[in-house]
């Protein structure tokens, strides 16, 4: 293995696999990307994992490994949006996600709101903030089905087990069994940011990190539904 090792949030897999392959083709170097939950990756880094680059799905876990970040290599790479979804083919109408919206009412008597775990996983934390902002949290809270991550929440809706769910826009884009009822206003939650940073001064790692911030990568990220954040 003569290339850099990247630790990246699992939700980036499709895009990063493609970008990594392009980078390898250009540089003739291998790149190994280890996908996992941001929390697990961060803990591994804290325990001395041989990672050269870390791309987290939230700011907190990047902050947690701040001490390991090489110089000023940290940057906010990508953004994402939060959407409200429903099973495709149902009669659910688009929802205008403005304060006061009666999401609990949309759940009916029995229905559940599928979300990533709201007190733990980034997608859940954002979702809860958004519902708070809408003033819907208190009504929805007892009806939430917490999945271990955003993919679990997506599955609940895709399989029709939950009438509504809150997931990233990137997840909803490629899942034909769900429809997007609405996108949460950007101001309803803290910005969804995927920070990235180098963990070593390995030249290739820095090169790969820069490549991620480049145009070629940007178009792949974009195609997968991410917002490419401008480099400050």
């Amino acid at each position, binding site marked *: 293995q003569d290339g850099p090792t990247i630790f990246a949030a699992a939700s980036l897999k499709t895009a990063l696999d493609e970008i990594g392959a392009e980078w390898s083709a250009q540089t003739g170097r291998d790149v190994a990307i280890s996908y996992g939950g941001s929390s697990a990756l961060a803990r591994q880094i804290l325990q001395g994992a041989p990672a050269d680059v870390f791309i987290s799905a939230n700011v907190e876990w990047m902050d947690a490994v701040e001490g390991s970040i090489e110089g000023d290599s940290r940057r906010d790479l990508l953004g994402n949006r939060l959407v409200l979804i429903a099973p495709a083919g149902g009669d659910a109408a688009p929802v205008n996600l403005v304060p006061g919206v009666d999401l609990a009412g949309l759940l009916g008597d029995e229905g559940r709101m599928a979300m990533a775990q709201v007190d733990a996983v980034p997608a859940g934390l954002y979702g809860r903030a958004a519902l708070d902002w809408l003033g819907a949290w208190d009504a929805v809270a007892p009806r939430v089905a917490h*999945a*271990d991550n955003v993919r679990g929440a997506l599955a609940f809706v895709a*399989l029709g087990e939950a009438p509504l769910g809150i997931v990233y826009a990137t997840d909803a884009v490629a899942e034909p069994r769900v429809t997007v009822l609405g996108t949460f206003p950007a101001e309803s939650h803290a910005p969804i940011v995927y920070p990235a940073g180098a963990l070593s001064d390995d030249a290739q790692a820095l090169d790969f990190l820069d490549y991620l911030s480049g145009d070629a990568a940007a178009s792949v990220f974009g195609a997968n539904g991410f917002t490419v954040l401008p480099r400050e």
Partner: protein
Amino acid sequence: MTAWLGPAEWQAVALSLRVSLTATALSLPLGIWIAWLLARRRFPGKQVLNGLVHLPLILPPVVTGYLLLLTFGTQGPVGGPLRDWFGVTLAFRWTGAALAAAIMAFPLMVRAIRLSFEAVDPRLEEAAATLGASRLRVFATVTLPLIAPGIVAGAVLAFAKAMGEFGATITFVANIPGRTQTLPSAIYGFLQVPGGEGPALRLVLVSVAVAMTALLVSEVLAARASRRVAGS
């Protein structure tokens, strides 16, 4: 102690116990039957059954959970009829958690019991038959008592596994505090946020304490069962 864990955590403890005990108790008869089939009978498709039983061991838990959701979800081929005809819903219920735990623990249970079946001397069963005992009576009065240590071992393995099961459970029934949030789901939640290690550790200790108690009880039971056979 009560102050040491919050009410939500106590709920998780109680729910985990309920789920694990239910899973163990309800799957035990089936486990004994399947173990008996595999140990004693020859039939076409035996190896298929054997493979099916082991499947949850081989598959990543998330996959098992997803398959459960597909099958036993309200839209699934089994879950739908269950709900429509019997009014039984498993998805998002503690009963679903018990089902997931039971299925995940099933290979362990069946193996232990099957090994014990294979160790029973068939000449004793023959002797019982010559004394006029029906197959059922032979089974209940000779075979079953002789495999008691195996049943205890299988049950305690299943219980321990059920106490620790997480991936399949959360994927199938999500994590709804008070309804489906078991100890491992709660522990997982804590581990997803920076600084959550402390609360997670508390729950781990509770979980370990419960399972160790079960283990000790099982050792006593098994020792008693085998002392009965060994004489005096």
